[in-house]
């Protein structure tokens, strides 16, 4: 029966996730992915030629596959209510959790498979794992991934930190043996890696045979995994039920504290703290500047760089508008004895100052990357014009929203 519950929960999640993924597919993300794949295909042979003939390549491979096989995030599919209602059924939950572990391992396996295929040419060229060895090595990596997920599950039951640390450290040995096996072409070492991980799994299982599940750890893992998925989705679409992470950002936040203590600055203070600490406002702002620099660097024609600079500044302006409704669900700003028009003014003043900083950043980037001072000057002119027109643009948008 509990296995049936698992199917229902996973089905419900995938129903929801499917709708979000479709939304992402339609958002231009797929296009960006194609471009990335295309660029990768173009540059990959050059990268292979450049890659030096050294043991460091094997060490890098070991690190990559160790992280991939050992990370094994487990999605237990528990809910907060389970801590009350399912606790008495713990002994009968085995089919449920077995499905959770297999599901998590399978997802991780897909990740390993994808990276293995991408790195295939490196593995075949730089190690002894060619032909049948190449497939064999992949299978062994997948086995390690699966067993590691089971090992991790058992470790979760332990209260004792020391044993958990030791077990975690030991897990790194098995992929290392595989990589050495691939480097030297030694079947013996590969077999040792396989036997090692099976032995490890059996030991861990025996140790935790009589231990109870730690439900709170499971719930925490569940929330963490879900939040990770929703955070990814949030870069493309609005996710209503995501817990926004607050970052302290001491230095930036202290800049906001510099606003003079007077009633007129109430909303400036509010917007300032929200921008610095909440959601992804500050992250988005910096990312746009960095990407702008990269794109400018990639596209050589000067007139294109001018367009790119303008486009990214405009994109920043559009993204910043989200800040306006940041406090829409909280009553306090409506209760303060502060005129409503100050709120509007504060929003314009604050976001305009941010755009000025972004504009200056983009101009500096162009001065550094570009070759034409005339285009830099044109970009500066564009920034000034946008800043002048900005208040009217915000008011117009507001009127349009009202209609």
């Amino acid at each position, binding site marked *: 029966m509990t296995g049936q519950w698992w199917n229902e929960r996973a089905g419900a999640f995938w129903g929801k996730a499917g709708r979000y993924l479709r939304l992402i597919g339609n958002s231009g993300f797929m296009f960006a992915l194609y471009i990335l794949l295309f660029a990768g295909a173009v540059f990959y042979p050059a990268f292979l030629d450049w890659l030096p003939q050294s043991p460091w390549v094997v060490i890098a491979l070991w690190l990559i596959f160790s992280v991939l096989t050992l990370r094994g995030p487990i999605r237990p599919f528990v809910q907060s209510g389970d801590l009350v209602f399912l606790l008495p059924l713990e002994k009968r939950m085995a089919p449920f959790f077995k499905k959770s572990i297999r599901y998590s391992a399978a997802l991780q396996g897909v990740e390993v498979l994808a990276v293995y295929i991408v790195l295939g040419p490196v593995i075949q060229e730089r190690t002894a794992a060619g032909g049948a060895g190449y497939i064999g090595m992949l299978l062994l990596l997948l086995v390690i991934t699966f067993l590691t997920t089971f090992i991790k599950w058992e470790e979760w039951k332990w209260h004792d930190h020391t044993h958990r640390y030791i077990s975690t450290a030991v897990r790194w040995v098995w992929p290392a043996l595989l990589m050495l096996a691939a480097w030297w072409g030694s079947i013996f070492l590969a077999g040792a890696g396989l036997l090692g991980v099976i032995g490890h799994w059996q030991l861990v299982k025996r140790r935790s045979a009589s231990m109870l599940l730690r439900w709170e750890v499971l719930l925490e893992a569940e929330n963490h995994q879900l939040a990770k998925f929703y955070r990814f989705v949030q870069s493309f679409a609005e996710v209503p039920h995501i817990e*926004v992470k*607050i970052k*302290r950002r001491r230095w930036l936040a202290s800049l906001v*504290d510099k606003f003079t*203590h*007077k*009633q007129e*600055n*109430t909303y400036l*203070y*509010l917007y300032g*703290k*929200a921008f*610095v*600490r*909440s959601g992804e406002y500050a992250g988005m702002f910096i990312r746009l500047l960095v990407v702008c620099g990269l794109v400018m660097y990639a596209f050589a024609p000067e007139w294109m760089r001018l367009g790119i600079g303008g486009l990214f500044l405009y994109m920043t302006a559009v993204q910043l508008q989200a800040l306006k409704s940041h*406090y829409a669900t*909280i*009553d*306090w700003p*409506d*209760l*303060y*004895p*502060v*005129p409503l028009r100050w709120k509007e003014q504060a929003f314009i003043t604050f976001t305009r100052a941010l755009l000025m900083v972004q504009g200056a950043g983009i101009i500096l980037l162009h001065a550094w990357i570009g070759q034409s001072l005339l285009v830099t000057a044109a970009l500066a002119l564009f920034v000034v014009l946008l800043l002048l027109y900005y208040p009217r643009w915000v008011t117009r948008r507001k009127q349009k929203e009202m209609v």
Partner: protein
Amino acid sequence: MTALLNINHITGGYNIHKPVLHDLEFDVDPGEIVGLIGLNGAGKSTTIKHVLGLMEPAEGVIYINSKTIHEDAEAYRKQLAYIPESPILYEEMTLWEHLRLTAMAYGVPEGVWEERSERLMETYQMSWRKNWFPNHFSKGMRQKVMIMCAFLVEPKLYVVDEPFVGLDPVAIKSLLDMMVEMKENGAGILMSTHILATAERYCDRFVLLHEGRVALKGTMKEIQEQAGMPGANLDDLYIEVTKGEITS
């Protein structure tokens, strides 16, 4: 003496065709605590939302010091501070920043707000949590932030909705002491609560609501007389009101 808060024949609710409040009428004077008592759904929180200006009455007017919110919204709001039933906090602000923002919004001058804040944090044993974010606060601590913000402003009128939920006994005592102190300094307090024994001890007058109507109002003695139950305590009066047989 003009009333500090005058609720003048208010009818209102979420839907104009189905009002929750029916012709409410009562006052809060300076220097008194008025208890707003009623069952869940009797209309206490809706009354409070009308006082705050978050809801508009379909009929009737609310005055604070003879001014309506439409005459001068800022002057109206400046005179009151609100402690909500469920704490509403800015997740991206620390305790200290909540206090600073409140001081800014209500025009509490620099120098004054810091001194008051330090005192409040000490009273509510929150000094060492000064730089904490709300997501690390328990329900009671969140409520303490609300209380501190309200008392930081030192307004003429306090509107307090179920303030004791989740508070520890020391904090409840501090809150009550502070309310008495503010009352003695001339402030008026409208407090909705279910803790009747506390209400009976601390409130000067009572408004008992039932199904959106004032069932009884006045001092303890007056409501006993209105109910025809001399010597009855607030619990008994309240139970009697909920039977729906007493209407003013």
